[in-house]
């Protein structure tokens, strides 16, 4: 059916940064797209993301996508005709232990092999690069092309651009069931009535599991609450995104002067209410780790703590592409707290998959089939939560 694909009705479930990016990439090529969102745009994980746009430290299975995505980020503001606060000022992952340096060199070599421009920065060079870093930091792995952006503005910009190209963005509409006829999906039932479709894309984050279950598809995704914090505004002093080995930390300063601090500290999610509750231990731990690495934060004031509800896959990388046995279903879900940076490339690859039949970067390592019986999914590597 490739020849008729561009005229087919494509339905996307999920109004986060992934769903809206897919909508934009399909709509710009003239496809008939409708996006269904149960609440508002960026109302779950995308609205809580710390906004890291990072390649380094990623699982090697998704690193090629991250590198290709960063190339897209460079021109994304022009492409979407929107200010999304993109800052490309580098990401550095520091350590306070000399013992870590050999391990860091190995990680650099592995990532360079895949094509990432990453280097080790040591001693005084580190302090010149990041003047506010703790004197205890001995080295860091640095990627100059990493950075950060505003996830809410980005989600809205994708949706607005898609709408300008004819996509329908339908909010306040929860999908309650998926209508299937044999190996083909024909539409969905929603709180606002039925929608027919020729192709369905599931990009519903932590809510994807429940939707897939109505198709007897068991996605290994569970809800995860990730805590973020923001300080009150302070003088601009940090350009890069900073992480640290042996710590739970992702630190950046946004253009308004607030520091935004994450790093994988847990909160308690509730899917029924889309509310998530922070934990005092996580707040205190995050204050401790962040100010240990960036001592100026000892003088900061904590302004706000929030918890995003993310879909976490069992092996920590997203599930992208087809589902065996269902001809017209695509998945783009389970980003496990690090999907924001991938959003441009995921939108592009999913649009290629749906309209052309083949994505320009192979998705084999990230498809649902990796969980099939007999195949052994890779165990999660040491991971960085940088949003």
């Amino acid at each position: 059916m490739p020849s008729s694909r561009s005229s087919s009705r494509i339905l996307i479930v999920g109004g986060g940064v992934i769903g809206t990016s897919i909508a934009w990439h399909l709509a710009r090529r003239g496809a008939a797209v409708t996006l269904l969102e149960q609440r508002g745009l960026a109302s779950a994980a995308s609205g809580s993301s710390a906004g890291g746009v990072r390649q380094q430290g990623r699982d090697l299975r998704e690193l090629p996508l991250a590198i290709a995505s960063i190339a897209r980020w460079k021109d994304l503001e022009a492409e979407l005709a929107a200010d999304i606060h993109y800052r490309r000022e580098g990401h550095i992952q520091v350590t306070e232990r000399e013992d870590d340096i050999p391990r860091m060199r190995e990680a650099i070599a592995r990532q360079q092999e895949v094509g990432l421009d990453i280097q080790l920065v040591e001693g005084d060079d580190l302090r010149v690069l990041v003047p506010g870093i703790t004197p205890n930091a001995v080295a860091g792995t640095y990627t100059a092309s990493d950075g950060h952006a505003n996830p809410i503005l980005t989600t809205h910009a994708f949706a607005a651009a898609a709408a300008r190209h004819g996509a329908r963005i339908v909010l306040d509409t929860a999908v309650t069931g998926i209508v299937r006829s044999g190996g083909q999906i024909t539409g969905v039932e929603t709180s606002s009535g039925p929608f027919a479709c020729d192709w369905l894309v599931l990009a519903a984050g932590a809510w994807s599991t429940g939707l897939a279950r109505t198709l007897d598809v068991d996605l290994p995704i569970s809800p995860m609450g990730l805590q973020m914090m923001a300080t009150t505004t302070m003088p601009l002093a940090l350009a890069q995104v900073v992480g640290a080995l042996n710590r739970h930390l992702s630190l950046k300063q946004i253009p308004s002067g607030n520091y935004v601090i994450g790093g994988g500290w847990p909160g308690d999610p509730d899917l029924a209410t889309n509310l998530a509750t922070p934990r005092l231990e996580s707040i205190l731990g995050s204050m401790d780790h962040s100010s240990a690495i960036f001592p100026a934060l000892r003088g900061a004031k904590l302004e706000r703590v929030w918890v995003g509800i993310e879909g976490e896959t069992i092996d920590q990388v997203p599930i992208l592409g087809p589902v065996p046995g269902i001809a017209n279903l695509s998945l783009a879900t389970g980003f496990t707290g690090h999907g924001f940076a991938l959003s441009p490339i995921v939108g592009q690859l999913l649009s290629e998959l749906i309209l052309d039949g083949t994505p320009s970067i192979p998705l084999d390592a990230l498809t649902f089939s990796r969980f099939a019986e007999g195949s052994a999914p890779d165990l999660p590597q040491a991971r960085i939560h940088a949003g």
Partner: protein
Amino acid sequence: MSSSESSSAAHIDTHETEVLIVGAGPAGIASALAARSAGARVMIVDEAPEPGGHLRWEVPDFDELPLAPVPLWRSALSESAASELDGTDIDRLMNTAVWGIFPNGPGHFIAGAYDAANDRGIRISARAVVVATGTRDRAWPVRGWELDGFFTERQLLQSLHRELPPLGKRYALIGDGKATEQVKAAIMITGGQVIFQSVDINHLRIEGDGRVERIVDRSGPVDVDAVVMAFGQRIDPTLAVQAGAQHTLHVGEAVPTPFITPDGATTIPGLFLVGEAAGVQSARWAYQHGERVGAAAARGVPAHEPVEGIWIDPEKPRRPFFPPPRDRAILIDREEGVTLGQIEDAIEAGAWDINDIRRITRVGMGESQGAESLPVVATLLLWRDSAIADERLLARPRPPVRPIPFHAFLPDQAEALANHIH
């Protein structure tokens, strides 16, 4: 988290109690006494230096007034309420603000607190928590309200307590009726004068170069030194909402309000809301409510489904108490400098709910987290569409209720580093 990480807060002073009362106004004091009488260990916490709540600022009856202007007055009611705690073994933590309540498994809470007098962080572990945080002033946007010299009622009362102004200070008063009585009395006993009064907020403009110099209405400008807005108070149950209690919209005030039973029980077992924060009006009724809720908190009440509060009348039209401002140049958020025009533009551009508007325009993103501005935004949305779902008007309050300094909550970094590495 591993055990070494979860013990990262070991350096913070931890207090343990059975019933924690947040707020030492009439409702909090009555709750504390009732819970103690019922046999529970009780701790009462307030950010003020002494108990009494807003009674501490209240101007006493006229026959108690001194003859000369004084910056400090005492209310007999406040004294008697506070003295009730004397002679009990109820633990008191004054100068201490509870900034977050974190449910920690069934029947257990951990509160984050900050002792401003000693500049240190505190954790309080409790079996039940009673939120008795009272009310805050209603503040509604008026042109020029960002200028120095603009006060709401309690801001003025507190400032007059701190410092006696020059005699003859000229005030403009926005408001009428009973809500203005306290302000008028306070201005009088501190030697000031009210030379202008109006309630016609849509036709008022405050002007001045950085600070209040004049107020302008339809009949022209009047030179004044200060402007006071006295529109009464609204409920402040923020801590209970933030802790995760299920809540709905108080349509009149356009703020979130938790579902509670007559005993003050929220949907979180062990978390209670009492007094004026729960919508009870007047100190006297708040005190009586406290007697009931304090006893319930001590004995524990079972979990319950959401119960509509007494103030929700489905027959009444969904109209907030205040009409929205109309002047697009008016600042809705004085901290972040967000205008009505910016908010209307965001709504036109498809912002879906109050959280969307907040994140796009930064309204309510300042240090006060929109305590003043978000009810105005909710009101705007309600006036545009009275059938809008409550959920879209409920901005999620986040801890801390006001900013807290990192350093008060940090372990000694050198020691922490040593522990961390070895």
